[in-house]
């Protein structure tokens, strides 16, 4: 079966976001950008399913500015077979991304779409569920384990109380959580090979999708800071302080 893996180019997770002085957003000029970590997990899972013989072809998709091509090359270097870049300026919200992906699904007919559960910039946690809703497909969100199971896929999900396992009819949507796998690094020969893998260029108009945002940003501010308190010298002093808070007997 074919697997579609959407990937997003985001501020690298090791870079501390700087808020623009005019409060319109986070400054993304001259900072390191990388593939969203949850999407790396999604690419890795698709590759593992291919190595197990479950998946036969992996198509990576990115929707965003032209530089998202670099993110797609990373996916290709990890092991995706080909890529589709849908070039769009400005913010493309999860709903519009889901609509574009629905158009790609109609053309590509994958049986699995594996997405990161959320992007670490907007932290929306919506796209996979929205795509599943638009397609009328099953959804296995926050996956920590994925197994092919006779025309179905068994997904173990990280839920608030622990773990939940559901069986999904194919085709299906999976969104990845942290513990699904540890993504591989692309080797140098694979990075070289990725440069010649096919990459198709598209626009949202090709799928008849209007990407105008529904939500506007009024302002972006720093979160309120906590003041550091004081250090205590030893356990006895800590016990006294805790007792003053009414939570311990001294």
């Amino acid at each position, binding site marked *: 079966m074919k697997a579609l893996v959407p990937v997003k180019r985001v501020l690298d997770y090791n870079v501390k976001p700087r808020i623009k002085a005019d409060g319109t957003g986070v400054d993304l000029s001259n900072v390191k950008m990388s593939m969203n970590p949850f999407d790396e997990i999604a690419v890795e899972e698709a590759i593992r399913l291919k190595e197990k013989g479950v998946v036969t072809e992996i198509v990576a998709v990115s929707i965003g500015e032209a530089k998202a091509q670099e993110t797609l090359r990373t996916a290709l270097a990890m092991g995706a077979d080909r890529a589709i870049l849908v070039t769009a300026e400005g913010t493309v919200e*999860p709903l519009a991304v889901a609509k574009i992906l629905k158009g790609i699904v109609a053309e590509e007919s994958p049986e699995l779409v594996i997405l990161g559960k959320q992007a670490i910039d907007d932290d929306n946690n919506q796209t996979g*569920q929205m795509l599943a809703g638009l397609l009328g497909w099953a959804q296995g969100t*926050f996956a920590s384990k994925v197994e092919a199971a006779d025309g179905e896929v068994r997904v173990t999900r990280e839920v608030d109380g622990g773990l939940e396992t559901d069986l999904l009819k194919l085709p299906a949507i999976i969104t990845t959580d942290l513990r699904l796998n540890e993504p591989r690094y692309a080797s140098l020969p694979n990075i070289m090979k990725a440069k010649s893998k096919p990459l198709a260029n598209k626009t949202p108009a090709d799928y008849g999708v209007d990407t105008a945002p529904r939500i506007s940003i009024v*302002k972006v501010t720093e979160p309120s800071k906590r003041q550091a308190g004081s*250090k205590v010298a030893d356990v006895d002093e800590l016990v006294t302080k805790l007792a003053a808070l009414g939570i311990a007997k001294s």
Partner: protein
Amino acid sequence: MKCLVLVEHDGKTVRDATLSAVTAASKLGQVDLLVAGEGVGPVAEAAAKIAGAGTVYVADDAAYAHQLAENIAPLAVELMGEHDAFVCPATTNGKNIAPRVAALLDVMQVSDVLSIEGPDTFTRPIYAGNAIATVKTSDPKLVLTVRGTAFEKAAAEGGSGQVQPAQSTGDKGLSRFENAEIAQNARPELTSAKIIVSGGRALQNSENFHSLIEPLADKLGAAVGASRAAVDAGYVPNDYQVGQTGKIVAPDVYIAVGISGAIQHLAGMKDSKIIVAINKDADAPIFQVADIGLVGDLFKVVPELTEKL
């Protein structure tokens, strides 16, 4: 504005996360509630008692027994014909269901709402809580998930909602629940605990975690949490994780033991009233947010603390 709040429950009782969502919805307008499940009469009765409850829609069907989003989303969409806002707690259940509903309504969801600034304006965290965005939506209906720690809990008693059956939208046959490993825990639940003791990677292994963190927690009647590093290393299961991608908590007292204070962890606990940090590295970032810090070897300090409390 007429709001529909998804009631989070365990089949018997209403979960606290619902009460925070009710408070958020009440800032927008009228609060109706949706109880979906199997044999959920008692849950509906309890939901009707929540202060401010209007109509309590009860969809009682085996199709809803395990809160599968594929089955619950069409039900919510049906009821949204007469409502202006769908409000879910930002729990894994709410996060699973709400976007599916939003897509079916052609609405862009506002996730993880921290405050309601107006009928269409909200604040929410972005970049793991490193920035707070004020956003304004232009959609005709609202779909929101709300962060429990950001809203007071509505009173669980005193309301007089009207329980009304809702027509089942049936089993869509897309997915089946197979099993759940839900931790049986005698300790308080993390997201509603007044005191939390959390352990990090400095505990070195699962045995140390259990023999040091748990006795301290039990002495204080506290819930037990962990950093992502401790969960990834396998010391404790995933449901212990406090942080941006785990649980967001705001107890009265949060005791961080052997946790350095990575930004992802701080995002999940920095709204705690009092933060206590125990760490042997005096420069650990956790001390920058801690109200009370103790620099020391946790293997000596924690047993001593447990004994002296």
